[in-house]
């Protein structure tokens, strides 16, 4: 079905900090806005909250919930809708293709939403690294443990180890400890001094980091820089991990075993850029080598009518995501106003955005870049793998099969994928794409996925046979 046969002034994909701020600021300027999210509730990753209170202690959540109320009065909210592609109509409008599964048991059905403009605010997902035993049940991504707690009120385990790199490990460990888990240690593979050493970081983040450090101290959670989890052990569930001391390149110095039932692990985030790549948006390399959508000062991508905000333009946390969303919404509203007035030259340049917001965004971006530089992924992790360690969990491809493909002459990640099949399974390389690129000695390529969410053939057939959408009132 084509939603309401209406052409919206702006369609926003993603209902996290960035998407909600963008949709609200555009709607407040009079644009007709639709916001689409696959989740049952708005919030995205940071503002995730359960259907029934009590809500998790999340700074800024009250304000966010107020924003969502204001938004629901001014915009169309399509929750429980998964976007699988976006296409361009001959007249220039964009059609967003989604599927949704109504609760009446009638199965998945396609939905199309049309817009003159699009804001991509699809966030990011965890970036785990492979190691022996990482597919044992009980090993979760750091964000996964956080999502269980924030969205479901479920504490991931009783004896929990937290490991990886980056400042995100701190709130995850603090959250688990406060909820009653025994957190046996936070293992930061980098120096951990990153925060204090970098002048930008020392200034900007000291407050927040200090409050987590305090909370960890209160729960007697040891924070151990230059250590990592090298392996997970157990029969059909996690029983113990091997923890190692590392040198600065993440080579192993010594190891010990720690009994636990849960591991929460993450080495940063991978921005979800696939819909932008599908539309032909330019990408650039972020400070950590991740491909991200390139945007100008006004959050415009290189493709006319398409804006991007939040993690897809570079990982920087919810505050930056919200600010970028707000600026994108304002810029889209300006664009609509100038289009209505027939001012095509002014539209190209764009009207001025509020200086304070622009300056604050630029400062926060510099801070985000400094954080990425302070917590890099070092090549030493590749030495933690054994021949039989799965690199791709979906297709169950061990390291040895990757090496065989390389011996057969597959020198780049793309040829390795064709020969050994990592990244050809259900997750479409979202989890193994980064490690496979690293093992091939490359930086990860922008993801090419013609269909970004799995859909049933029935829904696809229905979408293809749908009447060409007729433009609604506009």
């Amino acid at each position, binding site marked *: 079905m084509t939603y309401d046969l209406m052409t919206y002034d702006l369609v926003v994909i993603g209902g996290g900090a960035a998407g909600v701020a963008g949709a609200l600021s555009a709607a407040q300027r009079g644009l007709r806005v639709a916001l689409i999210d*696959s*989740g*049952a509730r708005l919030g995205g*990753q940071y503002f995730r909250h*359960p*259907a*029934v209170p009590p809500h998790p202690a999340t700074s800024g959540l009250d304000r966010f919930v107020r924003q969502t109320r204001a938004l629901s009065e001014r915009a169309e909210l399509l929750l429980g809708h998964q976007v699988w592609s976006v296409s361009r109509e001959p007249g220039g409008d964009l059609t967003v293709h989604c599927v949704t599964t109504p*609760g009446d048991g009638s199965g998945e059905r396609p939905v199309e939403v049309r817009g003159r403009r699009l804001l991509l605010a699809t966030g990011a*997902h*965890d970036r785990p690294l492979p190691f022996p035993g990482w*597919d*044992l*049940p*009980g*090993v*979760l*991504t750091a*964000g*996964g*443990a*956080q*999502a*269980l707690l924030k*969205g*479901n*009120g*479920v504490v*991931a385990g009783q004896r929990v180890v937290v490991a990886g790199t980056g400042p995100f490990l701190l709130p995850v460990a603090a959250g688990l400890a406060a909820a009653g888990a025994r957190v046996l240690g936070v293992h930061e593979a980098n120096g951990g001094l990153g925060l204090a050493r970098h002048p930008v970081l020392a200034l900007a983040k000291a407050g927040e980091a200090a409050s987590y450090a305090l909370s960890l101290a209160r729960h007697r959670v040891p924070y151990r820089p230059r250590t990592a989890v090298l392996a997970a052990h157990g029969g*059909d*569930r*996690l029983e113990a991990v091997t923890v190692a001391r590392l040198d600065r390149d993440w080579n192993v110095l010594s190891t010990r075993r720690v009994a636990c039932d849960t591991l929460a692990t993450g080495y940063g985030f991978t921005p979800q850029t696939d819909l932008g790549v599908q539309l032909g948006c330019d990408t650039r390399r972020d400070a950590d080598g991740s491909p991200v959508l390139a945007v100008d000062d006004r959050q415009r991508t290189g493709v006319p009518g398409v804006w991007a905000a939040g993690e897809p333009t570079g990982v920087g946390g919810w505050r930056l995501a919200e600010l970028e969303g707000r600026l994108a919404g304002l810029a889209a509203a300006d664009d609509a106003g100038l289009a209505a007035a027939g001012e095509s030259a002014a539209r190209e340049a764009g009207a001025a955005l509020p200086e304070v917001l622009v300056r604050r965004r630029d400062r926060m971006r510099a801070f985000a870049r400094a954080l990425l530089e302070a917590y890099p992924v070092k090549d030493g992790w590749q030495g933690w793998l054994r021949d039989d360690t799965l690199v791709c*969990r*979906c297709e*169950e491809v061990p390291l040895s099969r990757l090496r065989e493909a390389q011996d057969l002459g597959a020198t780049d990640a793309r040829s390795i994928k064709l020969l050994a099949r990592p990244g050809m*399974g*259900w*997750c479409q390389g*979202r*989890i193994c794409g980064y490690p496979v690129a690293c093992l091939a000695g490359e930086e990860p390529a922008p993801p090419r996925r013609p269909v970004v969410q799995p859909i*049933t053939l029935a829904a696809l057939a229905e979408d293809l046979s749908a009447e060409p959408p007729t433009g609604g009132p506009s």
Partner: protein
Amino acid sequence: MTFQITIDGRPVPVTPGQTIGAALHAAGVRSWRTTRFGGRPRGLFCGIGVCFDCLVTVNGRPPERACLLEARPGDEVTTS
């Protein structure tokens, strides 16, 4: 204020709004399927619908992601 679902006939309590995956995990069930080739156990991993480790069969329907699927009273989970 909880309701029940079952896994292979055994009852599992659910707080309204919880996903199938969260309810199973909270009840100490860490895996509910095995992989095609190695027969390895799988449960939650990413928790947000990205990895597809948590695929689950509910009420005999084709597999869905347990971490996204909200539990409804009486849902029957079967493991393979």
